[in-house]
């Protein structure tokens, strides 16, 4: 960059710092009420004195909040934005694949960049944050804690994500303005060297930095959840009656603690290889297979990091609408812990075709097949919970049942892939893509939707539009199965993944491949329509939906299923109605007494 550029950057940076300093001094007023940090406020004994000014108003509230519920909402909003980005990338790719030749995108590198961005966005910027949204909002409520153990760390963990996303997506924004950058990073989400080392595109460096930030964020969050669940439980919440969702988040946090720092270290090694001539993953150094070992030692636990809390949501919500308790609660917990332990012993099943020692391969096959057992324990327990229950087929329940259905297909195809002889044939085909999308879209996202609908009345105070929600479910269910089952057939037909075109095919069942690609594209558009309906439903109902006035909107008390978070919600509704609500939304002139209008 020329020296003028450096001067311009200096001015910008200086202006930013001055802006921050001015902002901080302006915050002084609302911060002076603080009862903490040594006696300035002296208001600890008087609860009513600072009820209304606990949170600043407007946008400042959201930028400075350390309240777990607000941070949960922030995580959810962030995940929604990432979901839109990643989803549109997928729609663009599927539209391109509707025809055999390149017709929509400029060149195949754009396809590769979309592919990379879709994978990284959905896993790191949508998947992990949407789960953090649920766990932030609900775990303190479920375990009767005041807040997370470290509220400020919680906020830092969230705020690392937006810069992370900007860096990961930066290639797309910056490329049009500079010669040096061709397009977004096109390394695929697995970032295998030598490709990822040799690509000169600087957007790869930015993506690695962004990934590093999201890894730091996930680790901070995990430490916080472990500390919260261990040390902040209420008096009547012991290990024996800890809810199933908290169990899964506790296990997930343990997995994050061991997996994500390793990813961070491997990413730094990759950055050093790219920019500072180290040879960690070069043939003359550690070798390219070293990256695959390190990456998948993180990458496979990441799969369970993503799937365990959704399993927790399904285990939690399913019984509510089955009218009976979760069958075999203890064994669902044990299977969660078993999956957590086993998940670190299966990573090399991603590497069966790399030429690693066949004896090693066999042991990884054995452990990979073994992990089917705890997964099946859960599945049978969910089915048994449904058995003879009095089912209520509302939207959260439909998504739970859809989860089980899709998870069975995704899981069984995974068992096939875990077997070395089958994997040698199907490796790097669309079969793999179909398999893991059944799990990540068909199961993980479905459980997310179940949770979003189930708790919607609680975090918005309003009810969603039921008919639209049913449309969302059925379009998602049909779209998922159409898209991803077509991919499984594509894999059996021998079609390899990550290709932008297929007009050069001279062998194989070309007609079947073309038809399946078109079916998958049709399914993707069904999914798109479904998700547009969903976003519309969520936003419009939040603004204008009917207000929830009953603390038990799902009538859980009838079947004795009402749980702690709904009891909290009921108390909140009672007090909100009594004080006419809305007080915390309004700006306050001073840091002191409630004004008359607040009391009226």
């Amino acid at each position, binding site marked *: 960059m020329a020296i003028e550029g450096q001067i311009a950057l200096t001015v910008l940076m200086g202006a930013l710092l001055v802006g921050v300093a001015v902002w901080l001094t302006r915050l002084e007023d609302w911060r002076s009420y603080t009862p903490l*940090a040594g006696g300035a406020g002296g208001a600890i004994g008087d*609860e009513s004195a600072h009820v209304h000014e606990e949170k600043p108003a407007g946008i400042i509230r959201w930028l400075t909040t350390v309240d777990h519920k607000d941070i949960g909402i922030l995580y959810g909003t962030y995940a929604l934005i990432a979901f839109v980005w990643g989803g549109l990338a997928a729609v663009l790719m599927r539209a391109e694949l509707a025809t055999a030749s390149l017709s929509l995108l400029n060149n195949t590198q754009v396809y590769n960049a979309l592919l990379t961005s879709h994978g990284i966005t959905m896993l790191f910027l949508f998947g992990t944050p949407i789960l953090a949204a649920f766990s932030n909002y609900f775990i303190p409520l479920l375990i009767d804690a005041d807040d997370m153990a470290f509220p400020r760390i919680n906020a830092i963990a969230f705020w690392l994500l937006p810069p992370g996303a900007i860096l990961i997506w930066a290639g797309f924004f910056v490329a049009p303005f500079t010669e040096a950058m061709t397009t977004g990073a096109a390394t695929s989400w697995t970032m295998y060297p030598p490709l990822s080392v040799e690509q000169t595109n600087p957007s790869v460096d930015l993506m690695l930095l962004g990934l590093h930030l999201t890894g730091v964020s996930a680790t901070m969050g995990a430490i916080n959840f472990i500390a919260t669940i261990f040390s902040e439980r209420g008096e009547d919440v012991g290990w024996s009656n800890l809810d199933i969702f908290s169990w899964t988040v506790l296990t997930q946090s343990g997995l994050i603690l061991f997996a994500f720092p390793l990813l961070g270290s491997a990413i730094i090694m990759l950055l050093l290889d790219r920019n500072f*001539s180290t040879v960690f993953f070069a043939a003359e150094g550690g070798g390219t297979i070293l990256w695959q070992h390190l990456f998948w030692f993180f990458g496979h636990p990441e799969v369970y990091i993503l799937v365990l809390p959704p399993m927790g949501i399904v285990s939690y919500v399913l019984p509510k609408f089955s009218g009976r308790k979760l069958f075999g609660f203890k064994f669902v917990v044990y299977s969660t812990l078993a999956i957590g332990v086993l998940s670190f012993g299966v990573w090399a099943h991603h590497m069966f075709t790399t030429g690693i020692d066949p004896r090693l391969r066999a042991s990884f096959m054995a452990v990979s097949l073994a992990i089917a057992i705890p997964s099946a324990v859960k599945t049978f327990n969910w089915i048994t919970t449904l058995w003879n229950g009095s089912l209520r087929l509302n939207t959260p329940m439909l998504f739970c049942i859809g989860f089980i259905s899709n998870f069975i297909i995704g899981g069984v195809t995974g068992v096939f892939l875990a077997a070395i002889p089958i994997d040698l044939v199907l490796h790097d085909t669309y079969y793999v893509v179909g398999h893991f999308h059944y799990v990540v879209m068909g199961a993980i996202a479905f459980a997310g939707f179940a949770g979003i609908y189930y708790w919607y009345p609680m975090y918005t105070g309003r009810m969603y539009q039921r008919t639209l929600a049913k449309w969302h479910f059925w379009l998602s269910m049909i779209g998922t199965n159409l898209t991803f089952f077509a991919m499984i057939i594509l894999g059996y037909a021998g079609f390899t993944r990550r290709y932008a075109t297929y007009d050069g095919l001279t062998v194989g069942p070309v007609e079947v491949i073309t038809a399946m690609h078109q079916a998958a594209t049709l399914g993707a558009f069904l999914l798109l329509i479904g998700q547009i309906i969903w976003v519309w439903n969520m936003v419009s109902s939040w603004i204008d939906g009917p207000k929830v006035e009953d603390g038990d909107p799902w009538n859980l008390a009838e079947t004795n299923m009402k749980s702690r978070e709904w009891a909290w919600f009921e108390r909140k509704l009672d007090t909100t109605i009594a004080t006419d609500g809305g007080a915390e939304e309004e700006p306050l002139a001073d840091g002191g007494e409630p004004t008359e209008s607040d009391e009226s």
Partner: protein
Amino acid sequence: MEEQPGLSDQYRMSSPWPMLIAFGLAIAEVGIIWPLAPLAVGGLLLLTGSIVGIVREAGYVESPWPLLSGFALALVAIGLALFAYSGGAFAVNSVSESLRTSGSIGLRGLSIAFAGVIALVGALVGKYWTTANAGHSV
């Protein structure tokens, strides 16, 4: 306290520092990896300043200035060590050019050290020319 709408419990529900720490870390990271000196200096100042701010807010230190000068000295030491390692070379490189010349490593070192110097000046000014270390009002 959970009966209070929107409240978890009695403690401060907001802090400006977490967002600034996160942004400072991100800006400093980019500024140092790509040797963009203004981003490196500004990001490090934002990061160290906010860490000092949050530690003070949490009540772990009485006055922010000794901690800030500690960070400042550490930055100066790291920066000068990096500069010495590069052999005293210094060059303003283009992003698209090589990032691994000794000149660009020297630039990284100097930017880190420069951030440290500014932080040190800030700490001294804060300690001797403001009243901010006396109370808890900032």
